[in-house]
């Protein structure tokens, strides 16, 4: 911060000014600190789970402890890291700036969303000390409702409150995008990141309430024994799965759409080329959001649903591949004959495309009813959704972190550190999860504590890979601290981006724009 320019960081001082801030940029940073802490916790659980699976039988913990660690790893990563991750951190920071607004539509609601996430996380986390939960992150009935302990109630209540946070953030983004665009910023000129966040917000608003009622019903089941999921009283445990996946399948796209938005920004900026097929990428986000509501049944091919339902869900599931492929091919077309710079964010973007493609294509296997019977609940599924969610979302998260770091802090993130981090994460990721495809195909079931000795080598390879990933993220964290302490001054536009956030100082002033910008063209006018 040379010559003490006035910006959002020094606009007010003191921890209290942060905790009561209504500035979307500061709230974005608060989300970053919170979510990264959860990520660290979830990551430690992941490393422990993998360590336990280093040898068959007991390696470090009892089966009971293993079940709990696996549950916390899943619940923390899904509900507190990947779902809120990119929208809450980077969406909050860049969305209003990208459309030329001074803030989100409802700043107080925005702060409230952050507190909701904190309260929910605290209640969920409290079960670690009160009564550990061992249901897996899906809380499937009847195990969660009848068999296991009462810890499920606070756990689920916490997730319910986190759901509120998600709904309120989504609502805020939708209204912001509709109502606060700068003059000349038509819907067909908003950056693709905004399109992605907008589609995500629609999903958050429309899907999360169903999770809310499902969790409330689970609490009612456990406290009052209402019988809706209890076969003894005429209920049906499979109904829980239908309700649960009606939210949780769209939730996969809540996780991945913002990542796709990030990739669109990165590919355009680092290829120095006008994005190929702006409209196609924009509307394919909406298409993915729409189709995602109709595919939940593919989680239940083996639940005894009718063959007709299986065929229908199989078909619609494969349909998701169409808008996804539209995006991927448009990115590749954008890169074609571009002046590509392989900076760290671009490496993460290419890593995303590579891993997400593997994740997507193995998804087609699982969408085929016949194949799914073979692969169902094996490590093949574990590998598949880690390729999609981790390979997708976390690669994009790292890319976004390095790309927008100068804008957020005014300091440049060391590109070398970013590249080293990328090498570890990318290679470690493949070493961890590729063997799991093979394990799944060989028949190793997911979630299990123990496995046959034949699977030992592949499991050890997988565990070794998890250490590489862990190292990669630690390098990434080192990069953040190093850049904050010793980073070079960034200037307004270190990477030559064309969207609005690069036209204002870094770090941005308190009200983003001194004068409301007026748009005359689209977002990616390179050449």
């Amino acid at each position, binding site marked *: 911060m040379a010559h003490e320019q006035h910006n959002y960081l020094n606009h007010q001082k003191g921890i209290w000014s942060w905790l009561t*801030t*209504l*500035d979307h940029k500061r709230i974005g940073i608060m989300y970053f600190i919170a979510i990264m802490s959860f990520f660290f916790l979830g990551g430690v659980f992941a490393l422990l789970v993998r360590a336990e699976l280093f040898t068959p039988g007991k390696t470090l913990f009892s089966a009971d402890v293993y079940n709990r660690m696996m549950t916390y790893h899943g619940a923390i990563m899904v509900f507190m890291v990947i779902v809120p991750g990119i929208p809450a951190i980077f969406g909050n920071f860049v969305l*209003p700036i990208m459309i030329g*607004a*001074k*803030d989100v*539509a*409802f*700043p*107080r*609601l925005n702060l409230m969303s952050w507190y909701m996430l904190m309260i929910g996380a605290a209640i969920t986390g409290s079960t670690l000390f009160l009564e550990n939960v061992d249901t897996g992150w899906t809380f499937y009935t009847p195990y969660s409702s009848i068999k296991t302990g009462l810890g499920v109630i606070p756990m689920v209540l916490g997730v319910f409150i986190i759901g509120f946070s998600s*709904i309120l953030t989504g*609502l*805020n983004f*939708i*209204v912001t995008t*509709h*109502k*606060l665009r700068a003059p000349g910023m038509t819907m067909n000129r908003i950056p693709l990141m905004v399109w992605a966040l907008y589609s995500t917000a629609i999903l958050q*608003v*429309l899907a*999360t*309430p*169903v999770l*809310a*009622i*499902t969790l*409330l*019903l689970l609490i*009612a*089941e456990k406290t*009052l*024994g*209402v*019988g*809706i999921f*209890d076969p003894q*009283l*005429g*209920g049906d445990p499979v*109904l829980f799965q239908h*309700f649960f996946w009606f939210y949780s399948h769209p939730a996969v796209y809540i996780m991945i759409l913002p990542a796709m938005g990030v990739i669109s920004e990165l590919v355009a900026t680092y290829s120095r080329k006008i994005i190929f097929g702006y409209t196609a990428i924009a509307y394919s986000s909406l298409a993915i959001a729409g189709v995602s509501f109709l595919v939940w049944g593919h989680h239940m091919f083996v639940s005894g649903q009718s063959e007709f339902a299986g065929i229908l869900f199989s078909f619609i599931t494969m349909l998701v591949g169409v808008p996804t492929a539209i995006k991927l091919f448009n990115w590749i077309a954008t890169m074609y004959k571009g002046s590509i710079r392989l900076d760290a964010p671009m490496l993460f973007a290419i890593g995303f495309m590579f891993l997400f493609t593997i994740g997507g294509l193995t998804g087609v296997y699982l969408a085929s009813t016949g194949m799914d019977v073979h692969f169902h609940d094996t490590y093949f599924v574990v590998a598949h959704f880690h390729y999609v969610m981790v390979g997708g979302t976390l690669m994009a998260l790292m890319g976004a972190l390095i790309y927008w770091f100068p804008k957020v802090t005014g300091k440049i993130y060391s590109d070398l550190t970013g590249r080293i981090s990328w090498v570890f994460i990318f290679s470690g990721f493949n070493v961890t999860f590729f063997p799991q495809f093979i394990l799944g195909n060989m028949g190793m079931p997911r979630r299990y504590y123990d496995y046959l000795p034949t699977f030992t080598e592949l499991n050890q390879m997988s565990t070794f890979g998890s250490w590489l990933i862990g190292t990669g993220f630690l390098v990434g964290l080192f990069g953040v601290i190093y850049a904050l302490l010793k980073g070079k001054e960034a200037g307004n536009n270190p990477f030559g981006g064309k969207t609005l956030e690069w036209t204002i100082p870094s770090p941005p002033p*308190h*009200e983003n724009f001194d004068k409301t910008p007026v748009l005359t063209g689209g977002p990616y006018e390179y050449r």
Partner: protein
Amino acid sequence: MSTANHTGGFHHAHHFDSAEHQYESSKQGIWLFLVTEILMFGGLFVGYSIYHSLYPQVFHAGSKQLSVVLGAVNTVVLLFSSFTMALGINYVQRGLKKKAIIALAVTIACAAIFMVVKFFEYTHKFHVGTVPGKYAYTEELSASGEKVTKVGALLAEANKLSVAEREHKLHLDETEYEHLTLLERTKNWPLFFGFYFVMSGIHGLHVLAGAFLIFWVLLKVIKNQVGPEYFTPVEGVGLFWHVVDLIWIYLFPLLYLVG
């Protein structure tokens, strides 16, 4: 930051162009929130319709247990409260402070009446043992070792008494006794009360939340914080209240009449 601009009594935050711009945005936000409310209840409606189609006799016997009169009274009360809420918004917009206060106070009173009626309905259900799921069963087992429902135990006791004694001692009149007998013969009937208590319970929580919100805007009216130039909170709370009423308008026939 909410460095609100005050120009000519208008009241809009710094990131909006005008008060009207802010009003439109707030209204869109409230409507979106109401969509999420409808979707949340939608899950319950889906569950209800699935089980209703699976076990029509359970829902028939269960809904016979509910008092159509009390349900109808509550429906009328809520419809009337929607009317007074709308009046309240209109009075605030026209700057008729006193009338607005009366209209909003009547709305809160209606919410209170609704909850009192619900209280009597609930306590009676607890009394006769038509409660959800596992609480419908008593801990004791019959001589043959089977689980006995609370309704079953009550009926066994009632059978030993004459009609007059039954009404005096157990507060069961003849029709209620018949309905309970019907219920007892229906397998899985606690499922209906699972839906009844969850659906009407969550709706009841919404009524309470709505009453508190109306009280909050009532204070705003008294303190002159809302008026013809700025009435967004009143209108927002009003919309929420209408949705709470609307949901009841679906719940009433589903729970009380469909059987």
